[in-house]
């Protein structure tokens, strides 16, 4: 095990996460992809903590924090997903677009009198 391999693993994990986030249409799939990216960062943290001489606890502590925060985040996110499913009966990201700008109302361009 070298640092490079760990970083490669983390990169691969991150890339998979990015790919998943960009392509999954299901909301839960998106959450999983984000989790992958987070874990890629965790691996980096742990790897640097392990291979860097000196203070070994900092990175691990940080990774632990991240895991805890990610867990909370997931709990909140999953409850939102459940609530949304109850309301919309649908978790397809392409259809969940209520945050978008309505295009049809063109702004009244300020014309001189």
């Amino acid at each position, binding site marked *: 095990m070298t640092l490079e391999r760990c970083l490669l693993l983390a990169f691969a994990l991150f890339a998979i996460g990015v790919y998943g*986030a*960009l392509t999954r249409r299901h909301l839960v799939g*998106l959450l999983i992809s984000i989790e992958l990216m987070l874990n890629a960062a965790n691996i980096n943290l742990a790897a640097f903590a392990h291979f860097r001489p000196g203070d070994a606890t900092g990175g691990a502590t940080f990774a632990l924090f991240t895991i805890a925060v990610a867990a909370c985040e997931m709990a909140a996110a999953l409850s939102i997903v459940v609530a949304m499913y109850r309301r919309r009966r649908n978790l397809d990201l392409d259809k969940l*677009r*209520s945050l*978008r700008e309505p295009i049809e109302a063109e702004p009244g*361009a*300020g014309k*001189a*009198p």
Partner: protein
Amino acid sequence: MIAHGYLILLFPLLAFAVNGLWLARRNGFAAGLFSILMSAASLAYAIPLALEWFAAVHGGDASAPVEAWRFTWLPLEGALKVDFSMILDPISVMMLLVIGTVALLVNVYSMGYMRHDPSRGRFFALLSLFAFSMLGLVIAGNVFQMYVFWELVGVSSYLLIGFWYEKPSAVAASKKAMIVTRFADSFFLLGIVLAAYAAGSMDFSVLNGSAIAAMSREVSLGGFHVNLLFLASLLMFLGGWGKSAMFPLHIWLPDAMEGPTPVSSIIHSATMVVAGVYLTARFFPMFAAAPGFLDLVRVVGIFTALFAAVIACTQKDIKRILAFSTLSQLGYMMFSLGAAATVLGGVNTAAYSASAFHIFTHAFFKCLLFLGAGALIHHVHANELDAMGGLWKKLPLTWISMLLACLAIAGIPPFSGFWSKDEIILAAWQSGHGLSAALALFTGFLTAFYMFRLYFLAFHGEPRGGHGEGHGRHEDPWMTVPIVILAVPTVLSGLLAKDFFHHFALPHQVLSESPVEHVAWLPATAATLGILGLFLAFVLYGRRGADAKAALSVEGRGGWYRLILNKFYIDELYLFVARRLLIGGFAGAVKWVDTNVVDAAVGATASGTLRSGALLRRLQNGNLAFYIGAFLFGILLLRILGRLPL
């Protein structure tokens, strides 16, 4: 007495303030009485003051101005400041007396003339303001002070000409008077600005004295080399040009007849129009020093005199005839000042005193003529000669006085106008301006002709309608008394004041004088020409059987007659330039650019901002995957650009 000379101004100002703020709306009659009282007080103070001044300067240099008082009104920068002061010299003292007399008589007359006008209180307030402004103008010791009162004169004339503000023609006339004189005044102000810069002072004593040398230099003006003194003189004179209604800025004066007749009377005799002549006289040493400048004044003067006299021969409105006669007489005064420059290059001061003399005599007979015309108009309720005729029976005292005034203005000896006009022509002849003097003689002939045309058509022949039916005399003492009083100086002022003007009314600070030879045949010729004009008018309009209706009719007249009747279409030319070219064309174009270019650019900036916002907000498409992609792409971009410390 002299030290408290400001009282002469204070009385009319008080009348203006009290009447304008309080009395006018309460009681018009009381306002009139108060105005009369105050103008009487002003005159009563002016007479002993004049005597005291005369006693003080008698034997010495009478033309040297006596300074009654002075205070700093507006400190500008260092030594440059605006003082208000009162100077007494022959012309200012003469004007004080003339204005005081005329203002008093016109106030009395207005009591009768404006009897039935509900807003006569306002009239008396404005009349007092007018007198105050003119008094302030003549005592001014510096050009800035003169300008201050000059403008006040202009604005009070505006308010008085448009006194009947519900009458559209009066409103239009007041607007015309205001804008034309204002246009000329802007040059005057420019002259002051120039003088303040070049001479560093605005006092007449400096401008007419030490500043002449300082300003006698060439300056480059857009490639042309101009004499600075000439330029400053011209700018100042342009103010007087407009105020005294010299051609071609004369167009406002005939229209100013729309005001009540007492206003015309005071405008034409003592205030307003003589201001321009007075300005020229005040600046005489400076103007005389400017090379060739007096020649300009002379040409403008004689041309206006002749031009106005020609037009006066065709007019039908009695007040318009008098207005053109004023123009013509003002032309004489200007001409006289201009003729002071002799062909040999000297200064003939007799011409200067002749001009002041003519201001003096003209004030009385012209005031009388207008007051008399007002009485006629009051009687027949119309301005046109068409409605008059045979009025001598109805208004006998007015008739006699008007006859005397017509004789005076026509230059028939021994009435006042003869003496002053004779002096003018004589001075011009002595200065060597033969042609101008001949033109002046000819104008004198025309003057006699058109004045007696008016006289015969108004007073003699058969009555031609008008409302003044009925028998017996119809004269209102308020109106008749001033007319009769004015008849006295109309007859005598020439003969009595002749020597005073000859010996005392000389310009101060003018060094060179040219020898004067007396020409005996000139007075005789002038008188003969006057009588000839009178006779011609009699033959055409006065003799038994003369057809007044045909004489006044335009039918069958040639093109020349119409051209003259319509005042050579100069008004129309002005209207075209002002309304079509300046207001319609230029101002319209500027407004168009302002709206459609400048403001449109502002609008375009606003709408451009909105549009770009509209474009950008399309990015907010609600697709989470797109957001994440954009986010990552952004990070990558920053990394590539090297802005992110990774």
